C-alpha cells in the first residue's frame, strides 16, 4: 500500500454512512487513495469519490463505524491506489483490498504499480495462439480457452458456477510453461469463500496462486478494487516475470452491483436498471487488461464469471460483457436439473478465438473438426427433439432417432465429469469421438473421411 503522506487533514465536516467529508483540503484529486488515522491508533483506508473546491468526499474501505469527527485525520497519497508487485504475491491469501488474510506479513514488492492499470495498447497486442487447458472436457474441446483471451462464464443463481470456476482455477495449465492463477472472489458468502480456499489449497501450497477474497459483508468500495488488484498483480507476473496467468473473477454481477451502489453514493444519474451509464467502459477497463504483448513473455487470460439475474441474458451485466468479451461459456439450468455437471450448454457457448488455439501442434490435429462436428450434431439433435415433440418418436426416421439418442450419450459420456476430475484433453477428445460414432458415417460429413475411417475401425481392424 502507499505510505502515508505528510499532511493530515483534521477538518472532518461530516461522517455519513461509509463517507467522510473533509474540508480545507487542497491539491486532492478524484480517485486518490487516502489513509485515515483514528485516535485509537487504528488506520483505515479510503478513496476520494468527489472533490469540490476545498471539500473532499472520501469513501472509507473499512466503513466509518467507531469513528468520530474530532479524532479523525485523513492523509491523501497524491495518487490513486498503488500496490507493491512481484512474486511475493504467489501463495498468498488476501482480502479484497490486498491485506493479508493468511497470517503472513504485508505483501512486499520491489516495485509499485497503480491498480487502475492501463489496457494493452492495441498496436502492441500479439494475437492469441496457444490454449490454456482447464481439465474440463466441455471447455477444452468445445470452447477452448486461448492464452490472452477473455472468456466469461454466464450462469444463474443456483447453478454450480463457483464449483466450475474453482475447478478451472485448480486444474488449468499451459503445457508445462510457467503458469499462475489469480483468483478474485467478489461478494462471496463466507461459506463460498471457505469453499474457494479449500478447493484451491493445493495450488496455493504450490505457490502458483494468488487469492483475493472479498466477502459479501465487506464494504462495496473494496469490491471495486478487488478485480483491479488481481489484474495488477497478474500483469506483473505475466509481462515482467514471464508467466502465463489466468485471472478468474467471480462474481462480476456482484461487482457491478457494487459499482451501482457507489455511483448512487456519488449522486450520478442512473442509466439502465440504475447501473451507471459508464458500466460498459468500466467493465471494458477490466476485461481489456488481458492479452499478450509483443516482445514480452507471458500472457493474461481472463475468465470472468457472472450470474444473470433471473437467467436474463439481456440484463445489462451479461449484455455489456458479451459486447466486450470473445465468446461465452453458458451454463444451463436444464442440464443441471438433469443432474449433469458441468451443465455447459454447448449450443449457446462459444469461444471466438478457439480456432487460433487448437489443431495440430497446439492441441490435436482432429480437435477443430471434432468440435465442429459435435456442435453440428447436437444442433441437429435439438431440432429432432422439437420435431419429436410435434409428431411423436415413432414417426422419426432411424437417422433422426440416432440424433435423438446423441444428446443423452453426449451428456453421459462426454459432458459429465466429477468436480475433482482433471480430464486430459486426449481423453476428452476420445470421448467426443465415442459420442460421434453413435451416428452413421453419412451424418458425420464434417469429419475428413480418413479420420473417420481410422476411428471407426481402429488398429487396422477391417471394415465389415
Amino acid at each position, binding site marked *: 500500500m502507499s505510505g502515508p503522506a*505528510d499532511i*493530515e*487533514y483534521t477538518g472532518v465536516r461530516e461522517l455519513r454512512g461509509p463517507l467522510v467529508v473533509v474540508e480545507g483540503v487542497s491539491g486532492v484529486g478524484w480517485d486518490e487513495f487516502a489513509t485515515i488515522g483514528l485516535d485509537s491508533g487504528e488506520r483505515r483506508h479510503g478513496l476520494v469519490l468527489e472533490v469540490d473546491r476545498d471539500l473532499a468526499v472520501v469513501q472509507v474501505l473499512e466503513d466509518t463505524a467507531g469513528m468520530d469527527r474530532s479524532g479523525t485525520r485523513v492523509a491523501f497519497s497524491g495518487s490513486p491506489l498503488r500496490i507493491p508487485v512481484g512474486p511475493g504475491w504467489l*501463495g498468498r491469501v488476501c482480502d479484497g483490498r490486498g491485506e493479508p488474510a493468511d497470517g*503472513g*506479513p504485508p505483501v*512486499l514488492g520491489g516495485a509499485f504499480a497503480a491498480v487502475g492499470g492501463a489496457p494493452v495498447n492495441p498496436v502492441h497486442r500479439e494475437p492469441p495462439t496457444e490454449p490454456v487447458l482447464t481439465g474440463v472436457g466441455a471447455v477444452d474441446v468445445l470452447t477452448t480457452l486461448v492464452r490472452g483471451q477473455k472468456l466469461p462464464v454466464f450462469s444463474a443463481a443456483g447453478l454450480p458456477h463457483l464449483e466450475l470456476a474453482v475447478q478451472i482455477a485448480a486444474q488449468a495449465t499451459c503445457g508445462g510453461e510457467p503458469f499462475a492463477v489469480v483468483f478474485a472472489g467478489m461478494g462471496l458468502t463466507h461459506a463460498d469463500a471457505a469453499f474457494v480456499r479449500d478447493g484451491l489449497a493445493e495450488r496455493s501450497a504450490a505457490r502458483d496462486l494468488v487469492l483475493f477474497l472479498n466477502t459479501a459483508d465487506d464494504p462495496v468500495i473494496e469490491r471495486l478494487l478487488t478485480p483491479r488488484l488481481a489484474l495488477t498483480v497478474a500483469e506483473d507476473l505475466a509481462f515482467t516475470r514471464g508467466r502465463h496467468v489466468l485471472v478468474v473473477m467471480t462474481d462480476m454481477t456482484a461487482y457491478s452491483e457494487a459499482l451501482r451502489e457507489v455511483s448512487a453514493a456519488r449522486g450520478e444519474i442512473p442509466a439502465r436498471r440504475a447501473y451507471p451509464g459508464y458500466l460498459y467502459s468500466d467493465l471494458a477497463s477490466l476485461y481489456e487488461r488481458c492479452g499478450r504483448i509483443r516482445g514480452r513473455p507471458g500472457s493474461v487470460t481472463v475468465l470472468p464469471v457472472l450470474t444473470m439475474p433471473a437467467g436474463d441474458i439481456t440484463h445489462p451485466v451479461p449484455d455489456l460483457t458479451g459486447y466486450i468479451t470473445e465468446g461465452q461459456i453458458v451454463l444451463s439450468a436444464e442440464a443441471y436439473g438433469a443432474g449433469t455437471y458441468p451443465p455447459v450448454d454447448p449450443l449457446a457457448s462459444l469461444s471466438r478465438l478457439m480456432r487460433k488455439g487448437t489443431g495440430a501442434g497446439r492441441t490435436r490435429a482432429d480437435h477443430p473438426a471434432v468440435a465442429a462436428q459435435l456442435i453440428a450434431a447436437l444442433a441437429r439433435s435439438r431440432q429432432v427433439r422439437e420435431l419429436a415433440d410435434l409428431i411423436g418418436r415413432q414417426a422419426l426416421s432411424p437417422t433422426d432417432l440416432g440424433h435423438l439418442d446423441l444428446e443423452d450419450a453426449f451428456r453421459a459420456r462426454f459432458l459429465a465429469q466429477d468436480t475433482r476430475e482433471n480430464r486430459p484433453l486426449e481423453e476428452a477428445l476420445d470421448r467426443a469421438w465415442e459420442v460421434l460414432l453413435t451416428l452413421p458415417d453419412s451424418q458425420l460429413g464434417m469429419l475428413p473421411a480418413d479420420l473417420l475411417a481410422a476411428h471407426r475401425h481402429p488398429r487396422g481392424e477391417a471394415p465389415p
Partner: protein
Amino acid sequence: MTTPTDALDPVRAELLRTARASADAVLGRARADAQKVLAEAREAAEAVLARARELGAADGADAAGRERTRAVQDAWAAELAARAEAYAELRARIREGVRRALARGAVPQDRLAAAARALLGPQARVTGAAGGGVTAEVPGRRVDLSADTLADRALNRLGARAETLWGPP
C-alpha cells in the same frame, strides 16, 4: 397263500419311476441352477470386491493427497506466521532505533520543527511527541513527524528488501 397281484402295480411302478426320473431331472436342474446362481454370485462378489478395492485405493489416494496438501499448507502457514513475527520484530527494532537516534540528537528537534513549519506555515503549533520527534498543527491540518511514524515510513520504503529477513539477500 399267495398275495393276489394287483393289475395296477406296473402302472404304479411306472408312474413312480417317471416321477422319480422327473424329480431327479428337476433336482438336477435345480442343482445346476444353484451352481449357476452361486457362480454368478461369486463373480458378482468378486466384481464388487474388485470395485471396492479400486474405490478404497482411490479414496486412500485422495485422503493421502489431501493429507499431503494439508501438511504443505500447514508448513506454509507456519512459515508465514514466522515471517509476520520477523517483520513485526523488524518494525519494533526500527522504531526503537529511530527513537534512540532522535534521543541522542541525530536529527535536531529544531530541524523537524522547521520541516513541519515548511509544510503547514510559520503559524503552526509544534509540540514534542512522546518517544521523540514532533507533531505540528494548524486548524484543519496536522503533520506527524514523531519517531514511530518516521520509522514506519522508512520501513514501508524498504519494500521487498525486508524479504532478506526470510529469503536470500
